[in-house]
């Protein structure tokens, strides 16, 4: 495990299937704590606030599994502060950053180290492939290497939901020793990494 970790999540706000979820009581009950629900009721843009909460919980979960292993995931067990600046889980607090763009919201949960991230609308390539390509473009100048020397690997790990461990960045086939996170939804892909000056 690296000293610092990162988790990210992107939501396509234009997805027709989620247009009315901010008015769906049962969905909100399933995802939000009572406190989050109160904050949602006060929000000026409830749809954006709900999906910011959702992305925050997903991002924090991705981070936490790298710190604690494959913990059970229930959205309500990840508690997002009203100001969207942190996510609390099992007594630990993780700094949170929410960014909103044209048609998307992106959440970035970390452990306090500086992180870099990028969001892009993909063109053509499959989502996971496009996210990995974006990560390469983000990481290459930071690591001062060619994007072609970087690749993302996921080891077989049956204890995880998809039987794969969290993604690891390899440089010339060796671990690059900085934590990464990838996300995609609809036409959007996102990549994040802990800046190497703060890695272990």
């Amino acid at each position: 495990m690296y000293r610092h970790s990162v988790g990210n999540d992107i939501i396509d706000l234009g997805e027709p299937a989620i247009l009315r979820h901010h008015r769906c009581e049962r969905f909100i009950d399933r995802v939000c704590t009572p406190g989050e629900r109160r904050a949602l009721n006060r929000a000026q843009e409830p749809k954006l606030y709900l999906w910011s909460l959702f992305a925050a919980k997903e991002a924090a979960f991705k981070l936490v599994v790298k710190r604690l292993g494959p913990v059970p995931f229930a959205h309500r067990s990840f508690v997002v502060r009203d100001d969207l600046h942190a996510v609390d889980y099992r007594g630990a607090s993780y700094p949170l950053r929410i960014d909103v763009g044209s048609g998307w919201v992106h959440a970035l949960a970390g452990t306090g180290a500086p992180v870099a991230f990028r969001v892009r609308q993909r063109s053509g390539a499959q989502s996971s492939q496009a996210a990995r390509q974006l990560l390469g473009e983000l990481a290459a100048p930071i690591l001062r290497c060619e994007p072609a020397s970087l690749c993302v690997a996921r080891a077989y790990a049956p204890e995880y939901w998809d039987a794969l461990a969290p993604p690891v960045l390899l440089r010339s086939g060796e671990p690059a020793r900085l934590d990464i996170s990838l996300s995609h939804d609809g036409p959007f892909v996102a990549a994040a990494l802990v800046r190497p000056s703060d890695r272990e």
Partner: protein
Amino acid sequence: MTPDELFEQVIAILKPYTKAPEALAVAKMETSILADLKVNSARLVDVVLEIEDRFDIAIKDEEADGVRTIGDAVSLILAHVPA
């Protein structure tokens, strides 16, 4: 209800939520809902709510977290609605 009947009902529930209809067409009990059928996590919450509605059951968070495959969903329903 038999597992085979429940399998068909789960397939019907998943249909509007999958981004991989071709995988759904050849799905088996061991097919992964997220990895194979490309049902994302937001839609998975919708799937859980749909199962609750259709079978008039209440699914706990920890039960929902255990649903990885179609077979897991069938087993979960069977646990609430015995055959």
